[in-house]
């Protein structure tokens, strides 16, 4: 479980200071929600946790983001290992241009995960007591003889964890682009889980989905938080109330307030937080 801390994080898009002096610790094995009005830096903050924010050429990052005690912005840091440890779900799910099976297998193949490693991963999942409750179906994934492809098992395992297995088990070789948006987001979840991350970042993961798919995703997050640290950006206050254990309120790039969800929602300390949570502005 990573311990994620931000220390004096400042992010600039060109001259514009999008995130100002953010210092906070993200709790492990909880769902942390980042809330706040649009354009206030929520996505920037999220993307700074896996260095995805650097994809923009004009971006400058100051300060530190510590994961497991190491500053991920250190020039010597291994970005590839970081992104394996910290998974990402974007707002609009993007299926890679390949089959459903290959989408899930993409990450493990990229990271050159070998057969024994994969089998071990699945074994670990089965043995975790929390997960037996999470996806009882995982228990049904039998480790068949050594001859069978470990990758097949991995794909099945994570599709089950994302709650998608039943719907796609007969068409694993079909192009992923043929799935509905709700299914694509669950696919994205399975795909992110397949590389065995320790944290999952989600950028407005349900805003593009219909209510039923949205509910499914929220359910999966509830289960997954036992094993993974989850950070969710959302502009839907009700969603934050539903699922968040810990809340970060961002306003105009500043981390105005943060704390356990019950505290922030029922007795906010800052006037701005109170106003936002009450729905005075959004």
């Amino acid at each position, binding site marked *: 479980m990573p311990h994620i801390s931000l220390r004096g994080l400042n992010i600039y898009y060109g001259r514009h200071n999008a995130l100002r002096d953010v210092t906070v610790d993200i709790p492990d094995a909880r769902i942390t929600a980042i809330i706040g009005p649009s354009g206030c830096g929520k996505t920037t903050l999220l993307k700074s946790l896996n260095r995805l924010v650097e994809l923009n050429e004009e971006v400058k990052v100051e300060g530190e983001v510590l994961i497991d005690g190491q500053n991920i912005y250190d020039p010597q840091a291994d970005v590839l*290992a970081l992104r394996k440890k910290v998974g*990402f779900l974007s707002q609009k799910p993007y299926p890679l241009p390949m089959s459903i099976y290959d989408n899930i297998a993409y*990450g493990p193949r990229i990271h050159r995960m070998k057969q024994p490693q994969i089998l071990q991963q699945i074994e670990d999942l089965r043995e975790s007591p929390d997960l037996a409750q999470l996806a009882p179906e995982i228990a049904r994934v039998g480790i068949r003889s050594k001859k069978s492809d470990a990758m097949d098992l991995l794909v099945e395992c994570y599709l089950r964890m994302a709650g998608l297995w039943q719907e796609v088990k007969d068409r694993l070789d079909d192009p992923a682009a043929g799935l509905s948006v709700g299914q694509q987001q669950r696919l994205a979840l399975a795909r992110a889980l397949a590389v065995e991350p320790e944290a999952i970042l989600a950028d407005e993961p349900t805003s593009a989905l219909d209510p039923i798919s949205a509910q499914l995703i929220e359910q999966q997050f509830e289960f997954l938080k036992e094993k993974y640290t989850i950070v969710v950006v959302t502009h839907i206050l009700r969603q934050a109330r539903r699922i968040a254990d810990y809340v970060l309120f961002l306003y105009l790039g500043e981390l105005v307030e943060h704390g356990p969800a019950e505290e922030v929602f029922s007795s906010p300390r800052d006037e701005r937080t109170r106003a936002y949570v009450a729905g005075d502005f959004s």
Partner: protein
Amino acid sequence: MRWRRIKDSAATKSMRLALALVNSLLVLLVLGLFAKSRPILARVSILDLLLSSSWHPLRGEFGFFPFIVGTLAVTAMAMILAIPVCLLSAIYLSEYAHRRLRELVRPVIDLLAGIPSVIYGFWGVIVVVPLVRALGHAVGSPTTGYSLLSGGVILAIMVFPIIISVSTDVLQSVPAEATETSLALGATRWETVKHVVLRGALRGLMAAIVLGFARAFGETMAVLMVVGNVPKVPTSLFDPAYPLPALIANNYGEMMSIPLYDSALMLAALVLLVVVAGFNLGAHLVLLRVERRY
């Protein structure tokens, strides 16, 4: 008021006329060349013309095979040299380079595209031919340097601009989410290019290559100056070749004095027209669909 309407309709009519002329130009070209090719097509069947290797205009023998092979060989050589260089350059420009570098390189590549073909030929004669000659002698081939290889090298350089610029555009049109998704999973940029970007851009890249192929196929002057112009099927890289456009260019002077020669050359021009226009149209249709998707 009426005067304004009259002016408007007069202008509209002349615009429609221009449009009609432009659209009919292609047809006119084909018809004109076809009309001039009829005499020889009446005498010899098209298959014989295309497959025979015997080129003796004085005897009335017009076998195009050596020239067709020559054209294909020199174009293929050019593509083999150009495709890796252009694709790698385009990938770098689109996936790795800063915006500023891209903006700097663009006009430079356009410059390369604007250089007249005689100047490429000129450079080929002065620089490439001697190099090929030296290379040939080093491997034991008694070549003058005017060869398939020289033609291929010059043609490759001439198609760099079009393949690079179209490929870069195609690669850049792959949605940014694809790259982001792959990188977020911990892939390197190169792995992202290999597994995601190239897959998404495949059709457009093939269209870019076809455009380059068509350009090389029809190139006349530069190749003419370095390729040797001997009407025999080339059997080695260091042999001279004789592409179809060079054939036409070299013999326009004599073609009026030998019966059926002009008709044969016009047929060659028609074949060039059909092949090149066909490839170009196909590639542009694909690119249209690629652009519409994104």
